């Protein structure tokens, strides 16, 4: 599930390069569509049909179903587009950060504060 990008060697980090951009195209295109309230409503009304319309891969469909950010990234998702998917479920970037680091949101927020010391 974890993406390995030997070319930069930064741990826990996926740079959204050409490889990711190709892999994630359908997923990101769907997420980009969520700029529109009408499309967000259509997704909520029938998630399967909406994902099928954009031709998500099985891996992408699964990651969307699980609302699993690391899997969404591994499937080629870009965080700026994924944020629009997360917005549908009223999740903010701290929710995403907590989920990706396996922390509670409170612990994640505390870690952020800690780095200001």
């Amino acid at each position: 599930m974890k993406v390995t990008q030997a070319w930069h060697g930064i741990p826990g980090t996926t740079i959204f390069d050409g490889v990711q951009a190709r892999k994630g195209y359908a997923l990101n295109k769907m997420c980009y569509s969520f700029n529109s309230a009408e499309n967000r409503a259509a997704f909520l009304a029938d998630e399967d049909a909406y994902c099928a319309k954009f031709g998500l891969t099985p891996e992408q469909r699964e990651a969307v179903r699980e609302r699993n950010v690391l899997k969404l990234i591994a499937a080629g998702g870009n965080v700026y587009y994924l944020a629009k998917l997360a917005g549908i479920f009223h999740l903010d970037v701290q929710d995403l950060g907590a989920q990706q680091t396996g922390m509670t949101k409170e612990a994640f927020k505390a870690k952020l504060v800690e780095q200001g010391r």
Partner: protein
Amino acid sequence: MATIVGAITTSHVPAIGGAIAKKLHQDPYWQPFFAGYPPAREWLAKARPDVVVAFYNDHGLQFFLDKMPTFAVGAAPEYRHADEGWGIPTVAPFRGDPELSWHVIERLIAEEFDLTTCQEMLVDHAFTVPMSLLWPDVDAWPVRVVPIAINTVQYPFPSPARCFRLGQAVGRALEAWDRDVRVLVLGTGGLSHQLDGERAGFINKAFDQMCMEKLVAEPEALTRYSTVDIIREAGVQGVEFVMWLAARGALTGTVARVHASYHIPISNTAAGLLVMENRPRGAAESRAAA
């Protein structure tokens, strides 16, 4: 000749837009952040810009991966904000300055910048949030705008050095603009933060403070960093610092720091603000000679 009054560089975290809408300025979480901005506005009141040329990055409101420009320059009569999908309120439209836009476009393409020219362009929170911080509570924006979007979504991004040179070329174009207008340069984004991956929540205070220090007097020193260097030091989204470099590049004179503020965290981000005044090079000497 246009006067470049200076540059303001600031974070643009979308949550700030939400906090402004909810009037959370005195809330304990937000107070230390908002407290940084009154000195910037006081300086602005004296600087009296007519136009803002803004370097910012689109986060998937206007541009998608089907056609992703490296540098997109606005040439529209008006720029609108729109629904970004996760609920920050939209702001009033911005009046463009198409004549200045086209002047800048002509100069930059002549200097071998391969622009994408936009006669229609939506602007996202990276443009609107800083504008709201600088001009709160206005019915209509008191300045015309020329937005310049730099790709930080899809790698390869333009290098920090290229972005600095873009800013320098914009500065030269503004100096060659034969109108009596006062221009503020805006650079939005950063500072260190990372939203995605197991490294989410990464912040690097020492690196940010070094950048804020060097940006004023030795910006060239910062252009030695590659994109990957900046991502390593400042997090994936910390690469937005290239907007600060571009804005600093556009200052053609002697640069003085007027004000700075830095606060951790706002949302997942180290929030920075820098106000730099652009003083004509050799102004003192010319006066002495006169």
